[in-house]
Every structure is written in structure tokens, then in C-alpha cells.
């Protein structure tokens, strides 16, 4: 059974990475979105692999079900055969992007190499939704409320933008 689990892990990683590459490199918006959705599914699979099915389902529900669909709705307004124009991808942009990516990668690699990884033989802890709820409303009460405040502010902001642009017309 261990071999099957390993194969699944590699498959999930491949889905995530290939999806991410499609998102970044594809010239067509809709293909980029498909890549993004594949990445989200790969990450959800990794959560299941980590014995956290609730988080995995939330990942799919929110990122695939809500956010990707909203992005799709925005893309719909761009026209079906929209391709990225040539002048958007100039070599300077490519080089600066590559440098940023390399620096970030080296920083992450540094952190990863410095951390002492202790492997534990025990089964991963199974977090239940009950414990998650307790943690959210007990230990992490303040960040949770701050996030909801942030969302309220952004909603009000969106409404204000919509109102003003309507008045200007």
C-alpha cells in the first residue's frame, strides 16, 4: 500500500506543477484558468494526503467553486479567442521575471535547507471539524475576526466603486 501512496503523491505533485506552469506560460486566458484549477485540485489532493479532508473540500469549494468561477466570469468579457498580444511579453519583462523567481527560489531553498526535519513514524493526527471550529473561535479568534473585517471593508469598497462609476455616467 505504501507504493500506491507514493505514486499518488507524485501524481498530485505533477498535477500541481503542470497546472501552475500552464497558468503562467499559456497565452490563452481560458487555458491559464484551466491550469489554475488543476493546481487547486492538486493542492486539495495534497491536503487529503495530509489527512485533512475538510480543508481539502474547502479548498475545492472556495478556490474552484467560487474564485475560479469569478475569474472565468471576468474572462468572459474579454472575448472567446483572446490571445496575449506579442508586445506584452517583451524580453526585459521575461528576464526581470526570471530573476525575481530565481531569487525567491534561492531564499526558499535556504530556509528549507536550514530547517531540521524530524520525521515521525506515527500516523498523522486526524483533525476533526469540531477541533477546527474550536481552534477558530478560541485560539485564533482575533485573526479570524480581523479577516472578516477585511472582507467587509473590501465589499464596501467594491460597492463604493460601483456607485461612483454609475454616478459619473
Amino acid at each position, binding site marked *: 500500500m505504501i507504493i500506491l501512496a507514493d505514486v499518488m503523491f507524485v501524481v498530485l505533485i505533477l498535477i500541481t506543477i503542470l497546472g501552475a506552469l500552464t497558468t503562467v506560460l499559456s497565452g490563452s486566458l481560458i487555458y491559464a484558468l484551466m491550469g489554475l*484549477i488543476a493546481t487547486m485540485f492538486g493542492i486539495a489532493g495534497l491536503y487529503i494526503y495530509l489527512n485533512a479532508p475538510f480543508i481539502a473540500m474547502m479548498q475545492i469549494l472556495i478556490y474552484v*467553486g467560487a474564485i475560479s*468561477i469569478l475569474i472565468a466570469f471576468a474572462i*468572459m468579457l474579454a472575448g*472567446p*479567442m483572446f490571445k496575449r498580444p506579442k508586445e506584452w511579453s517583451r524580453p526585459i519583462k521575461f528576464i526581470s521575471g526570471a530573476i525575481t523567481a530565481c531569487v525567491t527560489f534561492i531564499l526558499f531553498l535556504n530556509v528549507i535547507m536550514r530547517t531540521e526535519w524530524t520525521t515521525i513514524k506515527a500516523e498523522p493526527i486526524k483533525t476533526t471539524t469540531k477541533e477546527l471550529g474550536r481552534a477558530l473561535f478560541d485560539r485564533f479568534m482575533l485573526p479570524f475576526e480581523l479577516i472578516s473585517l477585511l472582507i467587509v471593508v473590501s465589499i464596501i469598497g467594491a460597492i463604493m466603486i460601483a456607485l461612483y462609476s454609475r454616478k459619473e455616467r
Partner: protein
Amino acid sequence: MCTLDNIIQIIGKEVARLILGLIGVLVVVVVNALVLTWVERKVSGHMQRRIGPKEVGPYGLIQPFADGLKLLAKELLTPANVDKPLYYLAPVIVFIPVLVSFIVIPFDGFLQVKDINVGILVILAFSSLSVLSILIAGWGSNNKYSLIGATRSVAQNIAYEIPLLLTLLPVVFMANSLSLRDIVEAQREGWFVWRWQFFAFLIYFIAATAETNRTPFDLPEAESELVAGFHTEFSGMRFALFFLAEYTNIFIASAIATTFFLGGYLGPVLPGVVWFFIKTYFLVFVIMWFRWTFPRVRFDQLLNFSWKILIPVAFANLIVTGGILKL
């Protein structure tokens, strides 16, 4: 049957259950679609004072098989200007949520492929993929009617997913579990429709009708304005897959309503499976009844109805339920 026992021993009990479950699910999907196409025609016919199909077999019972054979035998046409990968992918993706949803639906106390402790979340999470497939189909077809249908479908699904979630939450509060079997077992003292959740049931049913793109909310495929909406360019077996998925989605929406509000497989005398199917198919019949009762809504009415009526009422219901449970 020692060979069967041997096979089960070799591949393990869990895997055997999954394989059997998958076969069962496929059989249910196909049989359900065959039955529903016949029922839909008969119900439509009688509601319009016609008889419906009656030539092929007694009461036209063989008609769905004839239709299926015709669709199978048809040539698969691919229009020249479609976006090929997306066009091929769409009818396949539409089937993922359909199959996944069936895994967690409890047809009976033990007749369930797998009881997952976040069961309802699995259905809700994967049901968003059906919007995605409609989107891909509409986009990949490279046809204005398809694209308009797909855009409408996305807007409609964003609007109606919220009341759908908000009406299922109070039931989860009351049952104290996300597992579908626990929710059914929590209704031993009485169905949740009669225990304060009547409005939740109404809102759920309206939202589910909209999510499955049925009349009065069938704007994504409105025949009179969009030819066939997102599946205009699909023919033969590809069209049949969309059709199968649509009927299975109606079944799943009714099955969730049965599980959450109508006591699922609970009922006297008859076995649980029979009760489950009676309740579910009654709700399916009600959805078909809607089709010949209400005219199609206008698009602004559709969105206003969800955002200005269904969502506030669902929120109020959620808060009141939470308050009552805490008192």
C-alpha cells in the same frame, strides 16, 4: 461462490466495495436517465393534454432505448472552428461531479458506497465543476449562442449557490454532523421540514431548480432565444452525455433534499431504499411540474430574486436556527 470470496480476499474489502459501488453508481445513472426521459415526456404530454410517446413498446416504454441507440449510432461531428481540447474535455468534466456525488448519498442504512465525515461538502465542492464544464463547452464551441448561454449559467450559479449553502447549514447545525448518514439518523424523531426548517426546504428547492438549469430558470439553454444554449454545437454521444448529466443532476438535487429535509431512507413498513426512491422521484416529479406551471423568468428578475429575496431570508433562517439551538 468461493471464487468471488477469493477475489475479495485478494484485492481487499475496501477496494472491492469501491469497485462494486462504482458499477452500481453507473447502473443507477444510466437507468435513472432512461426512466426520467420517458417520465419527462409522459408528464409533459399529459400536462398539455397529449398522450406523449406510445408507439415504441407498451406505453412507449422502449422509447428511451430507441433514443439512446439513435444517439449512439450518430456520427460524432466536430465543427471546424471549435477550440478542440476544450470541446472534447467539456462532456467528460460534466461527469466528474455526477459520479463523485453518488459516492456519499445514502440510499439505505448500509447501501452507500462510502460514508465520509464531510459528505455534504464533497457534493457541494464537486458540484461547482458542472458550472466549469458548461463554461468550457460554451467557450470551446466558439459560437455566440453557446457563449451567451455559458455566461448566463455562470452568473446564475454564483447567485444560487449561496442560498443553497445557507439553507443546508441550519440542518447541519441541528444534526451536528456533515455526514449524510448522520443527518438522516438525526431525523428519527421527525423530518427536518416539519422541525422549523420549512423555509429552508423551500429556498433549497428553488435554488436547486436554478442550479440544475430547469425551467423557470433555464436561461442558459433557453430554446426560444439561444437555440440550445451551451450545448448548441454538440451532437451525438457528446450531446447525450450532457443530457445524462442533466438528468442525474436533477436526481442528485432531489436526493439531497430528501436526505436533508425529508428523512432520507426513514419510513415505516417498506424497506429504506424504496422510501428513498419514492421521496426522491416525487421531488423530481415536482421539478417537472414546475416546467409546465411557471413561465421562464427574465434575467434581471432571476438575479434579483436570488440576491434580494432568497439570500436575506436564508440568512435570517440561519441566524434564527442558530439562536434557538443555543437557547
